[in-house]
């Protein structure tokens, strides 16, 4: 009557399965309710991890919907590490296919923004370069320079108002979102990630920098309409450039 960990795990994940035959209460009798404690612990702890990872998605759909959805997610996407701070990284893709969420087409992008905020919070520390260092580079040399962005920088593009939706749900007195496309730049000046609404050209430019392209190449990828001075100023003020080479 050996209970393998495969059998125990299968029983935990499927509430309709009977408890493994070899589990006993203190008197040696078979027991279901005692096994249910572990079933419950696993489901609740993983669901709670998702609730704390996605506070805005949770608010948007409500607790009952979120927990039902989390129950489906956790059974198809068990964590592959013990680092709960990264659990839920497949949520945007999951939500794109999750039937009951199809009437909320912005949900996957809101989830992506929440993941990006959390990644930024835990990203490696890196000392920023100052505006003076950038100012010392000759204008023609500047176009060939590569600007390394901080490991805490994230760019999230969306055809939905994800910035306004995040603010509206997390910041007191933030205005109601209006229907439009929004892109968000996340920086982390010290410990707290900060969001900045950016244009399509900014997003293309910053993504090109993140991919390691030289400034001139990133500029051409951004296309017309990029305010280079403004975006560089923002990056410098936020301590988001960590190396110029």
């Amino acid at each position, binding site marked *: 009557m050996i209970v393998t960990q495969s059998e125990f795990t299968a029983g935990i994940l499927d509430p309709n399965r009977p408890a493994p035959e070899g589990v006993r209460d203190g008197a040696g009798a078979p027991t279901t*309710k005692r096994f249910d404690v572990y079933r419950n612990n696993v489901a609740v702890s993983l669901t709670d991890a998702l609730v704390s990872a996605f506070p805005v998605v949770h608010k948007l759909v409500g607790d009952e919907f979120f927990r039902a959805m989390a129950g489906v997610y956790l059974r198809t996407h068990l964590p592959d590490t013990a680092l709960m701070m990264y659990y839920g990284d497949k949520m945007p893709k999951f939500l794109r296919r999750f039937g009951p969420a199809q009437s909320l087409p912005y949900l996957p992008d809101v989830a992506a923004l929440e993941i990006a905020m959390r990644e930024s*919070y835990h990203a490696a*520390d890196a000392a920023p370069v100052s505006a003076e260092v950038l100012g010392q580079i000759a204008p023609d040399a500047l176009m060939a320079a590569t600007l390394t962005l901080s490991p805490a920088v994230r760019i999230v593009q969306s055809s939905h108002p994800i910035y306004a939706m995040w603010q509206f749900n997390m910041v007191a007195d933030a205005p109601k979102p209006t229907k439009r496309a929004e892109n968000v730049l996340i920086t982390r000046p010290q410990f707290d990630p900060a969001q900045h609404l950016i244009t399509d050209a900014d997003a293309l430019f910053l993504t090109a920098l993140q991919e390691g392209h030289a400034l001139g190449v990133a500029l051409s990828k951004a296309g017309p309409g990029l305010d280079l001075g403004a975006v560089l100023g923002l990056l410098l003020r936020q301590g988001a450039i960590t190396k110029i080479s």
Partner: protein
Amino acid sequence: MFDAPQYTLPAKPGVGYKPQHYSEITAQPGPLGWLEVHAENYMGDGGRPIAQLRHLSEQFPISVHGVGLSIGGEGRLDPDHLARLKHLVGWLNPASFSEHLAWSTHDSHFLNDLLPLPYTAATVTRVADHIDEVQEVLGRKMLLENPSSYLAFAESDMSETDFLREVVARTGCGLLLDVNNVFVSATNLGYTPQGYIDNYPLDQVGEIHLGGHDEDHDDHGAPLLIDSHGREVADPVWALLDYTLERAGAKPLLIEWDTDVPEWPILAAEVARAAAALELVPA
């Protein structure tokens, strides 16, 4: 046997660290002598958690308590997780590292709970081999914590205390005695908690845990206690602590409160009660 430099926590009260208590703990520690953190919460690359832990370690001895190594797992230990643990223990150089007699990972899936294992000759070997590996990689002795049990296994043929004794004998590891877990398991499985303490190798204890539990009932209406870490330590658990300290002498005592975490003054009252229990221990 594992031979390495000894690290020890002071025989004072400690708490499981929660970031919301940062200012109060650092400004007015009172009788608080050390802090415990969950290893996995400090395995990110940087940012506030790491900076805060570095800062706290300048003021307090730190105990690193792992919840994700799956020492009782049938499979091999996750080498990536072990490497992250080595990195954390390396830069922090904590006063203690401890983990659980439990498993949480199966087929590379992490279940985020401390799951039980049967106590047999085969599982002693499995657990001892895993502890040997951990101590070898970390270059230090670890403490192994007794679980809260809600069920037993038909295949078990040794007691938990005999199991722990055997693992200590084979690996040279120390023990983390959770007296709330003893009380919960004893109630759930029908033995006396004092009897457990009488059979437990108290000379190996490097740390004691105290936490709150919830009360429920099983299929037959028998009491079923749940280790919730969400409330004050129950009175009979404090009494079991006194019973233990009388026999073991003063030990580092940790208050664990992980869910529905209260304001600092409520936790500070538990710390004061632990300090009072230590004062009763004969020198």
